[in-house]
């Protein structure tokens, strides 16, 4: 028998025929199909027990209660907490994406130290000792005032631990990031004589007069504002939106009043003029509970008639008169201001003008009006004792000039810091802590901020994400993210009752991170002496529990503590001015410069247009950059591939010879960049509007490199009355490319 090629072939054919008659091919196919679903890189959710953990979202100051749905140990979905006073089960796009922040590639997983331009992992012990060494060195040289900290808030145990640390150490340089809270606080301080938070009783108002506030674009507590808006719709409330661009808020309002950029304050005074002239103001309040009305009204009556105001603002006279009457005659009117979501403090005089409108209709501390809420005072720590070095350091004063004779009323002036550092020969700051903020992205004039931060010898970031500030920091001591930690969240975003949320760990910390509160306690104890004495707690959790006292248990159970019985103080009691009344004018107010429109920087001939940034719920201008879920919802008319689109009126486009969808060069005194053109009828001619929240170059590839950062092109403008940043835009030029 010859075994040759033919016999081999016939064997194979026989084998094939036989195989087809067995279950092997069918079973194997079925198995291979299932096998392809089991490859290790294909994400498969775990099977397991479902549980819910309540917590508080801290991604914006809104303070919404959230509930995390977990399967075993994995957070699968975040939802709004039903029954929560602020959001009652609702949650915004950013809040919903929290799980992506928890598990995504942005996380800084261990302490990092920058060595030769690259980050190297170090242990926590080493990280803490590095910071302690520098702190000790500076203190021994009498330079404790050269240590500063930037934080997003000054309320709550963690910010107050940082502040306490700086005070015990010998530095007055605790700096809160800027927002409209700065200006509102100052307005209430000057006119009510109190240190208070603004509260807006939006749930009960029936007429909202908004001077450019992004009521549906992130202003205040976003989810709460959406719910309030629904209520206004249901109960026939009216919303009048005054702004130069048809934002989402304007589109959903009852009446959109386009206005020349930057002139909102003049309109407010114009409305006040009409209300005064026609005696539409609340006589009881004005005559019995205010002081200085006669003095204040003089320049308003003389200088802000509808004839004059129409020239300044572009709003026609009939509209001004009509609007003033409607506002004054509404039963529960409320005027609000602070452009967009409130990132920029704005002009103090403008805020005071709008607040005067609220005073004229007598809605202060009334249902549907603006309230002055006492600041949260639940943190009662033992008074700290300072040693000589600390007192000496504190005496050197604040580096940002807040509280000095030039800026007597401001509390925090972070906008001034880059210039102060850049103009000095050696940096006046030797160590900068950055917590829960991203100043390299959020501060206007990013180039100047970057230059300034690079001059600082040691920048320590507590960021949980590799954001822009963390990237250029020298040391990163990553905090747990909000879903992994306990923290009290006193809500300061305009609610009208005291509420403290509790952020609870929904999962164990996923990485080698440490609570910033614990880091501060460790640093203090490492420094010893009076500083350590000021930090008598064993751990942050112990500190938190002790601080909250008998609020702790209800907060752990319910997720928040609310002073349900709180009422706004009645009129005489609420004012703590010298006259015990609301003061339209007083010594301090008189010393302020006269009301003036804030003009955009740049000269009109080289930069004939005006650039304004705009906010929306789909992009975040704050310290958290949009997570992938959120960036995916951004429309093609805002971001196309990696190109940002700027809006211009078709008339402007024709004048400049620009076509829709084509590239153009956008230049401002701060720089220039390539943009795409989007034609939009809802923007005044001569304006260019740019979405804020893009142009990150961190923290991950899903956000990096998309669009432009408005702060690259806009610089800060010091308000002459307060020193706060009042820039609402900048002069610009669009040219063909």
């Amino acid at each position: 028998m010859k075994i040759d090629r033919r016999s081999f072939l016939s064997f194979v054919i026989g084998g094939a025929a036989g195989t087809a008659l067995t279950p092997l091919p069918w079973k194997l196919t079925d198995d291979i199909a299932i096998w392809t679903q089991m490859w290790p890189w294909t994400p498969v959710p775990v099977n397991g027990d479902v549980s819910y953990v309540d917590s508080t979202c801290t991604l914006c100051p809104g303070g919404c209660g959230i509930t995390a749905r977990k399967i075993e140990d994995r957070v699968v979905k975040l939802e709004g907490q039903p029954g929560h006073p602020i959001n009652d089960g609702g949650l915004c796009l950013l809040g919903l994406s929290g799980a992506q922040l928890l598990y995504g590639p942005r996380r800084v997983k261990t302490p990092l130290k920058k060595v030769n331009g690259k980050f190297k992992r170090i242990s926590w012990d080493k990280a803490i000792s590095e910071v302690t060494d520098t702190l000790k060195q500076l203190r021994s040289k009498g330079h404790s005032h050269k240590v500063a900290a930037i934080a997003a808030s000054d309320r709550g145990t963690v910010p107050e631990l940082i502040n306490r640390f700086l005070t015990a150490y010998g530095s007055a340089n605790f700096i809160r990031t800027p927002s409209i809270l700065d200006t509102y606080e100052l307005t209430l301080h000057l006119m009510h004589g109190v240190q208070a938070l603004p509260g807006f009783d939006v749930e009960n108002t029936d007429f909202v007069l908004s001077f450019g506030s992004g009521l549906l674009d992130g202003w205040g507590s976003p989810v709460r504002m959406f719910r309030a808006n629904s209520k206004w719709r249901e109960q026939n409330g009216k919303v009048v939106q005054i702004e130069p661009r048809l934002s989402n808020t304007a589109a959903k309002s009852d009446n959109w009043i386009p206005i020349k950029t930057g002139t909102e304050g003049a309109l407010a005074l114009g409305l006040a003029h009409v209300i005064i002239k026609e005696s539409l103001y609340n006589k009881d309040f004005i005559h019995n509970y205010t002081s200085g009305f006669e003095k204040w009204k003089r320049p308003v009556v003389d200088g802000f008639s509808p004839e004059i105001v129409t020239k300044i603002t572009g709003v026609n006279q009939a509209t001004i008169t009509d609007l003033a009457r409607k506002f004054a005659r509404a039963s529960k009117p409320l005027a609000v201001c602070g452009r967009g979501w409130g990132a920029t403090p704005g002009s103090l005089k403008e805020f005071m003008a709008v607040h005067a409108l609220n005073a004229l209709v007598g809605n202060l501390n009334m249902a549907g009006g603006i309230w002055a809420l006492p600041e949260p005072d639940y943190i009662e720590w033992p008074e700290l004792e300072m040693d000589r070095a600390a007192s000496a350091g504190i005496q050197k004063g604040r580096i940002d000039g807040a509280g000095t004779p030039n800026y007597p009323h401001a509390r925090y002036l972070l906008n001034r810091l880059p210039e102060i550092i850049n103009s000095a020969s050696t940096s006046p700051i030797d160590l900068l802590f950055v917590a829960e903020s991203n100043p390299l992205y959020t501060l206007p004039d990013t180039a100047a901020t970057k230059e300034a931060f690079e001059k600082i010898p040691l920048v320590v970031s507590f960021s949980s994400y590799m954001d822009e500030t963390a990237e250029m920091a020298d040391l990163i001591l990553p905090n747990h993210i909000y879903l992994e930690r306990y923290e009290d969240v006193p809500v300061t975003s305009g609610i009208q009752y005291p509420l403290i949320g509790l952020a609870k760990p929904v999962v164990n910390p996923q990485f080698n991170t440490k609570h910033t509160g614990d880091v501060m306690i460790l640093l203090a104890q490492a420094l010893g002496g009076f500083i350590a004495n000021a930090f008598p707690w064993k751990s942050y959790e112990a500190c938190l529990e002790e601080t909250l006292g008998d609020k702790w248990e209800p907060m752990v159970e319910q997720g928040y503590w609310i002073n349900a019985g709180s009422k706004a103080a009645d009129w005489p009691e609420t004012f703590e001015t010298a006259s015990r009344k609301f003061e339209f004018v007083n010594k301090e107010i008189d010393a302020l410069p006269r009301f003036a429109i804030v003009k955009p920087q740049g000269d009109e001939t080289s930069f004939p247009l005006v650039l304004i940034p705009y906010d929306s719920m789909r992009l975040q201008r704050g310290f958290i950059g949009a997570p992938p879920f959120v960036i995916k919802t951004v429309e093609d008319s805002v971001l196309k591939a990696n190109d940002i689109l700027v809006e211009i009126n078709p008339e402007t486009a024709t004048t400049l010879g620009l076509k829709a969808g084509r590239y153009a060069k956008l230049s401002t005194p701060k720089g220039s960049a390539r943009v795409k053109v989007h034609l939009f009828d809802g923007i005044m001619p001569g304006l260019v509007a740019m979405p804020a929240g893009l142009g990150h170059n961190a923290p991950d590839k899903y956000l990096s490199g998309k669009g432009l950062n408005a702060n690259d092109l806009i610089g800060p403008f010091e308000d002459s009355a307060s020193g706060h940043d009042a820039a609402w835009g900048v002069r610009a030029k669009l040219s063909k490319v």
Partner: protein
Amino acid sequence: MSTQDDQAKDVVEAEAGETQATAPQAKEPGTGSSGTIILFFIFGILASLILGWAIFPTLLYSKKQQPVAFNHADHNDQVDNGCESCHFFREDGSYSGVPKLEQCIDCHEEVQGETETEALFVSEYVQKDREVPWLVYSRQPPCVFFSHAAHVKKAAMECAECHGPIGESDSLKIYQQNRITGYSRDIWGGNIIGLKKNSWDRMKMDDCVECHREKGVNQGSVQTEKGGCFICHH
């Protein structure tokens, strides 16, 4: 002289003789080649049949022991609610499935009986607070959504209809794991061509469909009457 012709004839004769000599050999039948071919064909068929029917099913499955030799019958006698005592519906309607250590600790915080198995269980798992890594016979791939509530509560089915009389068993059977997919043999069924005797012998989609068809289950959305696939494959 025509020497050429003579020579040619000789040559021709000589050639003819040669061919005559070889031809007979070529005309004989070649028994070797085609027989081999058929033989190997038969070998091929036989080999593949044996491979496909006998060797493949054996090789395909690995045999694993459960981590703890659990006795269902024993436990069934001692609990109040039968299967439901340990396999129950949670408050939110989801099914607890294979019990967690917490369930066992209700009774087995300390050694209750005298068997070595239990002693091992308590020392290795209860005292070390380790979950028992049970091998689940009925685990379906993640593409399948199955609601126990719909079948046990709504359709009032018995556990054994899909899971077999496991509650009456003295010991947990060997877990035969498909080496390619990682799932239990109980899904495809013990029989390699999918023949089954009892309703619990197989748990592939066809088996679900069989029962659904028989009972006339409405597979679609109530409103649109469409969407049959998405009910079970979300």
